[in-house]
């Protein structure tokens, strides 16, 4: 089992409070989408969960295993932080593929360096993941030869190669041309169907509505509203949520 418990996370950058007490639970197999306007703290939250930022306060646990406790975070060694990161995968808005490596090498690099099996095992699994994202014919291409949508699919395969408990997406389609978002969203949707636990920060309202089990609406560093897609999109309680959704829909 891998249930994620986020409890009372605070994060400040200088004097700006970005996260002001975030708590939520994510059960295994669930997909939660985090929506909200820019500057609401969505990305910072995701970065805290992936240990790219250290929260000032709060706890992060997977089942009974407390990965982070704000009371004694200075005690986390580099090795522990790396250990913690392995529970999560992160797909970035700007892909961040390694340009000097082929598609296959991008996917196999980390498992090979961290000795997650024999080279044959790792390559076989990587090929399978690349097939899963539909890029078998691009196996030996370099990132510069791929479209944005293809690059993002490789990034997803790369994250999956480390077999994370929870896969996180930071606005995975925001840097893509509109006609390329579909192929990436489809991959995420397939992952949902295969039972992956995922956290998706997104601006794609329609997508959030269709694949999520839970929607978190964030505003000004707090969770303004949390609920099923039906609750949030059809019966939003908070004024801020209503306002945000109205604006998002108007744009469309």
């Amino acid at each position: 089992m891998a249930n994620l418990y986020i409890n009372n996370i605070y994060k400040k950058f200088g004097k700006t409070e970005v996260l002001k007490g975030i708590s939520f639970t994510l059960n295994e197999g669930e997909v939660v989408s985090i929506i909200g306007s820019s500057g609401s703290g969505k990305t910072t939250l995701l970065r805290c969960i992936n240990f790219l930022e250290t929260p000032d306060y709060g706890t992060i646990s997977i089942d009974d295993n407390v990965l982070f406790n704000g009371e004694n975070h200075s005690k986390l060694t580099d090795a522990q932080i790396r250990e913690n990161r392995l529970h999560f995968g992160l797909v970035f808005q700007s892909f961040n593929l390694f340009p000097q490596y082929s598609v296959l090498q991008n996917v196999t690099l980390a498992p090979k360096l961290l000795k997650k099996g024999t080279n044959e095992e790792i390559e076989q699994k990587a090929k399978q993941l690349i097939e899963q994202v539909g890029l078998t014919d691009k196996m030996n291409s370099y990132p510069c030869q791929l479209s944005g949508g293809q690059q993002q699919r490789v990034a997803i395969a790369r994250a999956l190669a480390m077999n994370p408990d929870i896969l996180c997406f930071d606005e995975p389609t925001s840097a893509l041309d509109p006609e390329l978002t579909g192929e990436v969203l489809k991959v995420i949707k397939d992952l949902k169907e295969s039972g992956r636990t995922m956290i998706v920060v997104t601006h794609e309202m329609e997508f959030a509505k269709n694949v999520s089990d839970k929607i978190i609406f964030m505003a000004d560093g707090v969770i303004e509203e949390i609920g099923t897609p039906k609750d949030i999109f059809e019966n939003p309680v908070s004024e801020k949520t209503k306002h945000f959704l109205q604006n998002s829909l108007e744009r469309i």
Partner: protein
Amino acid sequence: MTFLQVTLFLWEGFKLSLLIFAVTLLCGAPLGLPIAFCSMSKFKPLKYLSKVFVWVVRGIPLMLQIFIFYYAPGLVFNIPISRNINLFFLQNFGIENMGMIIPVLVAFTVNYACYFSEIYRGGIESITYGQYEAGYVLGLTKSQVFRHIVLKQVIKRIVPPMSNEIITLIKDTALANCIMLPEIIMKAGELASREMLVWPLFYTGAFYLVFVGLLTIILGRVEKKLDYFKA
């Protein structure tokens, strides 16, 4: 003197130029790396010490630095640099009684290490932080991220500026004649005063041109080899 005799006579000098070139590159290029890391250090005193050092070394003419390393041992420590100092590895190349090449090698190495360090620093700092983060979230260590992800991208970016410095280096070796080290231009000058032959002075240019031509081809190949990816 025949053309061949002049050529061989000048070649004796050019061997010294090549020696300075090779030693500077082999010692200066690695030495630049710790200097670059110091300049990027989070430990402020080390960072500023390194920045001041680079400022001084890049801020003073190389010729003056050669004089400093030539005279300092005698003036400060009372052990003057003598022509008679022999280095065993040089004797193997038929270069004897060239004690004054030591301060030249030291000055060149220190000077070029500082220039190289700035190229390295620029290259390392130009890699987006997203590349590091992509490695970190996969669970890699800092040193794995640097060695397996960042380094090759840095190398690709620094090849053109490094090529520039390397080409400048072979021509800078002529500065060694300020302390009477008989490099190629000094040798040609000798012919001018002793044999009344002026043309060898201009002929020395051909030596540099051929060598720079070779360097251009080699460095071009390196650049081409890294052309397969964009970074």
